[in-house]
């Protein structure tokens, strides 16, 4: 392992154990990112050529692999981020380094088995064996029950490790305090998705506890912690300011996002009061995202954009703006019940989902990885920079915006033709899908998806090479 990490990341002999574990997680995360894109491309191509892998690997399987790979790599990336900042925040190395490695191998092994079963077995008969060992068939949390339990157990180990380190260091920062509470909520929510019920209203009610209260509450606070830490390191913002902002963000994210859950309870059989509660609170959800932009831009302005880590700084901007546009603006577009009645379950959601996950969570992971790269490869300056990260950065943004724009057109058209003019039936669906305004964007999505995949490789190339050869020495005062 040591050898592999050295090869990918550089000389790691001086790193604390905690940070080596971080690199292990990130290595797997980046590989899974690639797998996610590959299956996304196949799924996108199946929209255009439905016969492609029709009997070998149908759309539901390719899509499942696409979104499961996403959830897993983003979570692994976050775990890596936590291990990376832990020595810094506690002033000591992680307590259970060995345990941490074991947890990593367990998690990676479990993911590998789940993926192999998805690919080779795919589906089972309608019984509990299938739920336990093959596929639970609930979007995003399809992983069979044994893996659910395993994942929660491993999360427990990781949590214990973080907590024990904090306790041993006898030092708790505001960032760590928020992190520790947030992680309990995050792992606890996953349990809400672990039972079977024939009542589809209950099923979706709890399913959204996991999905919404993850991405619009606990993950959002988690990236608040990670980005706060990043701002301190990339720009040198004082801790007091970071922590004040973090608390404000927690107030706003939880204050709006918890009851904002109601925007998924409009049409699943739940009572009518959710239309008002969900509509009101979810409409306020963009407010913390605006606050995060203000925070990042203000800090960067104070330091006149001076930094030792260009890519990290720019990915911080991408995070702030991507989160605001993808989650805040794209989310707001369809969050009022009067609009959602028609747009619910159309390509609108896909448009929003892609921009939000990319802006909020992919960007956060890349910020942290670039901070690590700078720490490993250019610890004493001059400045971490290259040409290729700029190409990857602009390329990924342009191709993501292209995909999201295409899906937005398709989403509006589908909403209009299938739901407004049409009667939302089987045949209305087919007619709307064959309409050029839905059909042609599917080609654009595939085209921009291929482009995105290419820039993914540019990104990987940059991560492998940046800071390895001496760049022109620029005098930069660390901020």
């Amino acid at each position: 392992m040591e050898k592999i990490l050295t090869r990918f990341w550089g000389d790691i002999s001086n790193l604390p154990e905690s940070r080596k574990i971080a690199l292990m997680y990130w290595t797997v995360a980046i590989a899974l990112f690639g797998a996610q894109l590959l299956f996304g491309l196949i799924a996108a191509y199946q929209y255009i050529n439905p016969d492609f892998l029709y009997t070998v690997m149908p759309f539901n399987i390719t899509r499942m692999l696409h979104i499961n790979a996403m959830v897993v790599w983003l979570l692994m990336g976050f775990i890596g981020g936590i291990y990376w900042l832990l020595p810094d925040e506690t002033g000591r190395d992680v307590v259970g380094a060995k345990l941490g490695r074991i947890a990593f191998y367990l998690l990676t092994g479990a993911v590998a088995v789940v993926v192999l079963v998805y690919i080779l077995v795919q589906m089972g008969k309608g019984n509990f064996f299938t739920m336990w060992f093959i596929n639970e068939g609930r979007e995003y949390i399809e992983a069979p029950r044994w893996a659910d339990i395993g994942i929660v157990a491993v999360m427990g180990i990781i949590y214990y490790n973080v907590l024990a380190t904090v306790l041993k260091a006898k030092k708790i920062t505001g960032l760590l305090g928020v992190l520790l509470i947030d992680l309990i909520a995050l792992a606890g929510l996953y349990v809400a998705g672990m039972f079977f019920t024939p009542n589809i209203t209950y099923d979706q009610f709890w399913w959204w506890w996991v999905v919404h209260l993850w991405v619009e509450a606990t993950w959002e606070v988690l990236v608040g912690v990670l980005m706060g830490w990043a701002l301190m390191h990339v720009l040198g913002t004082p801790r007091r300011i970071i922590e004040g902002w973090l608390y404000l963000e927690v107030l706003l994210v939880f204050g709006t996002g918890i009851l904002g859950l109601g925007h998924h309870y409009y049409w699943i059989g739940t009572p009518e009061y959710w239309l008002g509660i969900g509509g009101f609170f979810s409409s306020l959800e963009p407010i913390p995202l605006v606050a995060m932009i203000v925070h990042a831009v203000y800090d960067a302005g104070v330091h006149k954009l001076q930094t030792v880590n260009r890519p990290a700084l720019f990915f911080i901007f991408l995070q702030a703006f991507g989160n605001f546009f993808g989650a805040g603006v794209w989310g707001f577009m369809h969050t009022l019940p009067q609009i959602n009645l028609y747009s619910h379950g159309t390509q609108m959601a896909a448009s929003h989902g892609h921009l939000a996950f990319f802006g909020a969570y992919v960007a956060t992971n890349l910020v942290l990885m670039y901070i690590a790269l700078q720490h490993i490869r250019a610890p004493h300056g001059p400045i971490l920079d290259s040409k290729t990260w700029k190409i990857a950065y602009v390329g990924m943004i342009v191709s993501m915006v292209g995909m999201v724009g295409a899906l937005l057109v398709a989403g509006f058209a589908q909403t209009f033709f299938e739901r407004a003019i049409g009667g939302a039936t089987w045949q209305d669906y087919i007619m709307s899908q064959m309409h050029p305004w839905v059909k042609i964007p599917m080609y654009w999505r595939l085209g921009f998806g291929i482009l995105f995949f290419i820039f993914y490789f540019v990104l990987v190339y940059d991560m492998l090479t940046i800071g390895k050869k001496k760049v022109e020495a620029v005098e930069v005062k660390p901020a």
Partner: protein
Amino acid sequence: MKVGWLEVTVATLFLTLVLGAVWTRGRNWLDPEFWKRYAIIGSAIMFIALIILTFDTLAKTKIGSDRVPSPTVINYKIDYKYDPEKGYFKPVIGPEKELLFGKEYSEEEAMELIVKGKLVIQSRACMDCHTLLGNGAYYAPDLTKAWLDPKWEKVMIAATQSKTKEEAMVKFLMHPDKYATWTRRMPNLDIDEEEAKAVVAYLKWMAAINTNGFPDHFGESKLVKF
């Protein structure tokens, strides 16, 4: 007093403001501690409100409740009509009977069928192609009111050479590749007859759930004329 969304909204915001103000009294708003206390208060109040609403919602959406009916509704005719009082489309159950597969199911038998149907739907990951109650994937039609879809009567009964709608649905589910109606075909998911019947029962039962009017004006299309 009847508690509606407005009362919940005003109460949670008011409590957050007031309790937060009490707990942060005398503190400067630039002090991180000020926001820490507000964050704790705000999160706690919203979470407690969610718990209370969850209990209320679960009670109102039990199987056999007004909104999520008993599985025995599969013995009745189900319709979907505009309710002028509510201002949205609502399922109408009965009163006339309409047996499924020519059989009257007891409460227990019907429940067994629904459990089986749900297991089949999860085992094949239908939701990674279709949406159910509007949630899932966008590759195939929404199934919320699939039972009421006019295409079964107008096209599929003849296409599958069936006598009834449910027979046509079973045949389609067992051989969707054979009875495909456009180029994007549903794959053969190895669904046997018993499984297909359970799924049809599930779809009929699901169509009877009150979804607050989603999808709006189902089946009343200006786009499709059979």
